[in-house]
């Protein structure tokens, strides 16, 4: 910040004010946090199973696509029927896009890093193709986006003063469910066991292949919901640039949240605030938004760095030497 000729303190204040200054800004922070939490869970659960899901972005796009198709295709249904169907479609679409790398990993031993990244690009270009062609709104003024979704498929605003939509409730509920699944169910135990090492898990009678496919499919479904929430709660139209990299931010959210559903919610809120704050600071004091990406990377490096085993070892050694230093004095008395 100092390099850009902006006083860091002023910049920092602008970010905090932009993120939390007024009720509507708090609302925007929560709205931005919604896809981050959902996509963050989509990284956190597979991470417990020893899988790094970098495919959030593609799963978001396919989830949003499936949800939009159901939202537009089943127009005319009442909200209590239509909305759940749209949510299911978002989950299903993401699940499909998560199950592919899961299957490739379990059956063919393909590294999920490579496959998910490739699937991200493929998903993006599929959506791009559709919103430039078959799904393009004829009255859209030439913009590559779909027709606006009907009101019966939207996530309604629940707190008018804050402009917060139902999406955050969906995200919070799923965070609780994820926590429960991870720690209180057989499947959660199997996931964590496979994360400790597939051979050991197999020895304990766990079907590691099935667990891997299911975990990545579940993760994909959660990311798909992030895409659904962004279209149905915020943008109301499918376009090909609707996600500003939520799927990649999600990796940071999940790791800073220590792959723990509660931690993911907190980290999601923090990075939602950062993104929202940086955006409004770019308007108020002309600070580039890209600063938020730099802060994200630094936070992640700081968190993983401070968790390093090397530090743990140095601390332990220091404590031991100190104990030794103290000992002789104690023996004198």
């Amino acid at each position: 910040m100092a390099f850009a000729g902006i006083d860091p303190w002023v910049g920092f204040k602008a970010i905090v004010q932009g993120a939390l200054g007024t009720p509507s800004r708090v609302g925007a922070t929560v709205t931005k946090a919604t896809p981050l939490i959902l996509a963050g869970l989509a990284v956190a659960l597979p991470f417990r199973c020893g899988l790094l899901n970098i495919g959030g972005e593609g799963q978001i796009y396919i989830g949003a696509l499936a949800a939009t198709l159901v939202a537009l295709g089943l127009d005319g249904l009442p909200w209590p029927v239509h909305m759940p169907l749209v949510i299911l479609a978002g989950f299903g679409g993401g699940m499909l896009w998560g199950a592919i790398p899961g299957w490739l990993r379990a059956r063919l031993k393909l590294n999920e890093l490579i496959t998910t990244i490739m699937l991200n690009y493929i998903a993006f270009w599929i959506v791009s193709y559709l919103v430039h062609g078959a799904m393009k709104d004829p009255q859209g003024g030439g913009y590559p986006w779909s027709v606006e979704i009907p009101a019966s498929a939207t996530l309604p605003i629940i707190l008018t003063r804050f402009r917060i939509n139902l999406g955050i409730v969906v995200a919070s509920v799923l965070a609780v469910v994820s926590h429960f699944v991870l720690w209180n169910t057989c499947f959660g135990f199997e996931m964590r066991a496979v994360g400790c090492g597939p051979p050991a898990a197999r020895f304990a009678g766990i079907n590691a292949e099935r667990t891997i496919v299911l975990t990545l499919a579940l993760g994909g479904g959660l990311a798909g919901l992030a895409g659904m929430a962004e279209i149905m709660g915020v943008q109301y139209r499918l376009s090909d640039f609707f996600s500003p990299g939520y799927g990649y931010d999600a990796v940071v959210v999940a790791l800073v949240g220590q792959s723990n559903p509660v931690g993911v919610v907190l980290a999601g809120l923090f990075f939602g605030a950062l993104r929202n704050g940086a955006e409004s600071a770019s308007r108020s004091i002309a600070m580039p938004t890209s600063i938020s990406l730099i802060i994200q990377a630094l936070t992640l490096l700081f968190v993983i760095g401070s968790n390093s085993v090397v530090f743990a070892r140095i601390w332990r050694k220091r404590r031991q030497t100190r104990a030794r230093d103290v000992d002789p004095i104690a023996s004198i008395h």
Partner: protein
Amino acid sequence: MLETLIQLLLSIDFLVASIRFSTPLLGASLGEIISERAGVVNIGLEGMMLCGALAGVLGSYMTGNPWFGLLAAVLAGVLVALIQAFFSITLAVDQVVVGMALNIGSLGLTTYVSRLVFGLTERPRVTGLAPLKLPFLGDLPVLGPILFNQSAVVYLTYLLVPVVAFVLMRTEWGLKLRAVGEHPEAAASVGVPVARVRYVAVLLCGALAGMAGSFFSLVQLNAFVEGMTGGRGFIALAVVIVGKWTPRRAALTALLFGALDAMALRTQALAVDLPYHLLLALPYLVTLLVYAGLVGQARAPAALGRPFVRD
């Protein structure tokens, strides 16, 4: 339509472009081969390339000499690699996570710096590395324009293929490097300085990735665009796997992906009645299919991704 397509695929233009587009993939994947053979996964390739692309433009912009741009690109790659090395070797944290952080940070940093230097609207064109026609060879029919009228970065990258292969497979240092990547404990027990070898490997990888990044900004476009590497760093990771961690196979794989890139762009320019958005997805789809088709054939270095902490 099929005729135009075949004509396109056989045109000299297309073959020149294929070799050009394969260059950044090959450069970055050569670096990644060195790093992975030493046991360090470097997912941060994309970020190193992006920093290289920006540094290349800055170097050329400030000095007016594209060769200083290339040098700056290499240095930028090394600097980013230094962070990767410190975290993944000295602090022994998850290498993939560090790489992710570097990718995100590099995207933010390069966007930030380019706006700072060039402003929001301006995108100055700088002197790039123009095609260098080699004497005699460049005058050969057909082969001349395809192989010997390319940019210096292209020659340099392809010259590095046998060099890297030789160093890895035929020198003592290469043997140590591979030992460190296969079994660091054993290597350490016979006195190989594991951490130092890994540091050198990662920094070399950064240098090559930085050079590969400069291709985008000094050969292809002569300017910097935010996020201009467009995921090529990730494709380079796939090139390493499909190329089975050997420079020569990596070169062939990079050529294949370069051709796909060239095809997607050429058909777009030709305005043939093809779904161009889907064509742009083709390189990624083919990467996935080729990768899936290689099942069980490729074997990664045994200690890949495993940090080594001395007791």
